[in-house]
């Protein structure tokens, strides 16, 4: 019984939250990795693209709600998501046309493009705040729980609660669907293959007649879609606040680099490595330990790091990887 209780506590406080968070990070890291491998720069504006996309989705959600359109037990935001993706992608294409294209044409060094993306980040950040404000917004209107703590206790009689929120399930299912779709697109379609060719060797790709403008356009559309989906899932699962997405930038980049930047599978792997490290290293293992070793009553909380250091975890992992394995876990490009 104690072993089961220990497992339940671990699932409730570590495995479920870290899986949902990991899926959100992985989607974010996929966007970063895609821009890095095809457009060849680290896109610092990605976090705020997520915020902007989510803000647009929220506005559309409110529109649907005022019209009385809902998805029943599912959050209305899922219905608004495709519209949000279209608008965000259009905005990204507009940004590319007005900002990035010039620097591509003059063949600016990657570091210049990075600085340009920092500028874009500030503009997008301001735009998001202007559009929707800085307050915390909860826009999840579906059924909150798949399993609530009370149901679980009635069902099993265990002393440890287990909860599974519907947003966590939606996050994981959507993330898996998006990843499958992305890999199918990259590996099976003509456009996907041309993108990979462009990423591997730009000159050869151009020689074989691949249209670079088309590749860039498709990349931005996919990036916009990934950012909007990741941002909306994060906002549904936690809550939306304009500047929390900026804070997500560090774990997202850490995930992309740990997995091997430029490698889509690596981005997904990195997302989960980062999320499980963040949650696992800052989790107080006292409860689990007491269940597993009945004779042992720990004095402290058996916590490796205080939760204040959560962001330090991704930073530390990032540094360790850059020192000892700069190509990442799966061989990506050297940063």
């Amino acid at each position, binding site marked *: 019984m104690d072993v089961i209780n220990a497992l339940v*506590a671990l699932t*409730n*406080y*570590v495995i479920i*939250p870290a899986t949902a*968070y990991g899926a959100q990070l992985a989607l974010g890291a996929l966007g970063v990795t895609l821009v890095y491998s095809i457009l060849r720069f680290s896109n610092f504006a990605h976090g705020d693209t997520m915020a902007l996309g989510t803000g647009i989705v929220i506005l559309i959600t409110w529109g649907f709600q005022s019209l009385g359109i809902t998805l029943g037990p599912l959050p209305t935001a899922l219905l608004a998501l495709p519209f949000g993706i279209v608008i965000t992608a259009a905005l990204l294409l507009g940004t590319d046309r007005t900002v990035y294209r010039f620097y591509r044409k003059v063949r600016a060094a990657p570091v210049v493009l990075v600085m340009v993306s920092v500028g874009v980040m500030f503009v997008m950040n301001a735009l998001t705040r202007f559009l929707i404000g800085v*307050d*915390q917004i*909860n826009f999840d209107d579906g059924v*909150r*729980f798949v399993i*609530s*703590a*009370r149901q*679980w*206790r009635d069902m099993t009689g265990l002393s440890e*609660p*287990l*909860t599974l*929120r519907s947003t966590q399930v939606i996050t994981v299912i959507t993330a898996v669907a998006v990843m499958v779709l992305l890999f199918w697109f990259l590996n099976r379609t003509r456009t996907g293959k041309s993108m990979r060719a462009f990423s591997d060797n730009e000159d050869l790709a151009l020689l074989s007649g691949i249209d670079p403008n088309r590749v860039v356009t498709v990349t931005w559309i996919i990036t916009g879609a990934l950012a909007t989906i990741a941002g909306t899932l*994060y906002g549904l699962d*936690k*809550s939306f*606040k304009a*500047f*929390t*997405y900026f*804070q*997500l930038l560090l774990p997202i980049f850490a995930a992309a680099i740990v997995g091997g930047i430029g490698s889509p599978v690596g981005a997904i792997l990195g997302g989960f490595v980062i999320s499980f490290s*963040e*949650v696992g290293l*800052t*989790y*107080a*293992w*006292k*409860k*689990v330990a007491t269940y597993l070793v009945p004779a042992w009553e720990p004095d402290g*909380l058996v*916590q490796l790091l*205080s*939760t*204040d250091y*959560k962001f330090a975890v991704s930073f530390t992992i990032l540094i360790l990887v850059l020192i000892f394995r700069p190509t990442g876990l799966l061989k990506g490009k050297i940063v």
Partner: protein
Amino acid sequence: MKKLLLASAAIGLCAGASYADEIKMGVLLGFTGPLESLAPAMAQGAEMAIKEVSDSGKLLDGDTVTPVRGDSTCVDAAAATAAAETLVTSDGVKGIMGAMCSGATTAVLQNVAMPNGIVMISPSATSPALSDMEDDGLFFRTAPSDARQGEVMADEIMEKGLSSVAVTYTNNDYGKGLADSFQKAFEAQGGTVTISTAHEDGKGDYSAEVGSLASAGGDALAVVGYVDQGGSGVLRGALDTGAFETFIFPDGMVSQTLEDNFGSEIEGSFGQLPDSEGQGMETYLSMAESAGYDGSSAYSGAAYDGAALMLLAMQAAGSSDPKVYKDKITEIANGPGEKIYPGELAKALELIAAGTAIDYEGATAVNMIGNGEAAGTFREIEIKDGKIETVKYR
């Protein structure tokens, strides 16, 4: 030479003689700085009390009282000290209603008030550190110390029969101070604090924090934070994971937002906040309204009370000398005697002159405890049927 001596002697005699005088009072508040939005209503509160006394013409020998404002800035101790120094040495104030923030108050008390022997009554410095500070009996406050709220929290939890509590606090002076004073008070009463951990405001995700709190366990979770900030995030996480069912909410969490966002989910949880009720506060609010400012602004009533207490103590001591009237302040505040509410200062002056004892209640039901600080009244609330309901005042 002889004439000069005579003249000096004459001037000396005159100074000793009794005649209507002008008494100056310092109003030292943070007119600029992080709490500048609160300062005007506090200054107006203090000045209203001063005007009331001055206009009555009944203080001492019909003395008039004039307020002199100074800027304590809240964060800059050097600026606060300089402002207080000016009030004392160049304006010659007989007492200072201020300062506003705990840090500035400490600096002014040690650098200006004590060396010059000037009485200070702060309406809003709530740091527990000021309770134990050496003050030569010159320092008082009409706001309760945060340590007091910690005690009230502990009392309330004990009465509910809960013996172990996990604490999460917002990572700033307020959160840390209140969490510490609560832990001290609760453990002194035999309770156990299983964990006391900080949360940062303005983050999206608090699942790691909730995980630690849940692992430590406890009968209830005390959320020492802000309802518009991380406090709500931790609360949401704790509810969603089923980690805690009962919560304790200090002042930063008790608001309409709490009711709107959580309502029935936190049924049976409880909390407390410094708040005054009754006749004194109502009278003060209507007086403030007719004077054209908002009396419900934080610490405005406490500022009125601070100024009134000093002036009534002068009357009781028969002197505007701070070294003399400082001993009368606690007596005036605690009674026993006829209760005095806002707007009755003229009556109070008459009663004191006639030798009748008074008990100054004022806007905030002032009652001094220990080292010259207000006990403060706290409103206890409980969540019943998804609504915040007042249980009682203590």
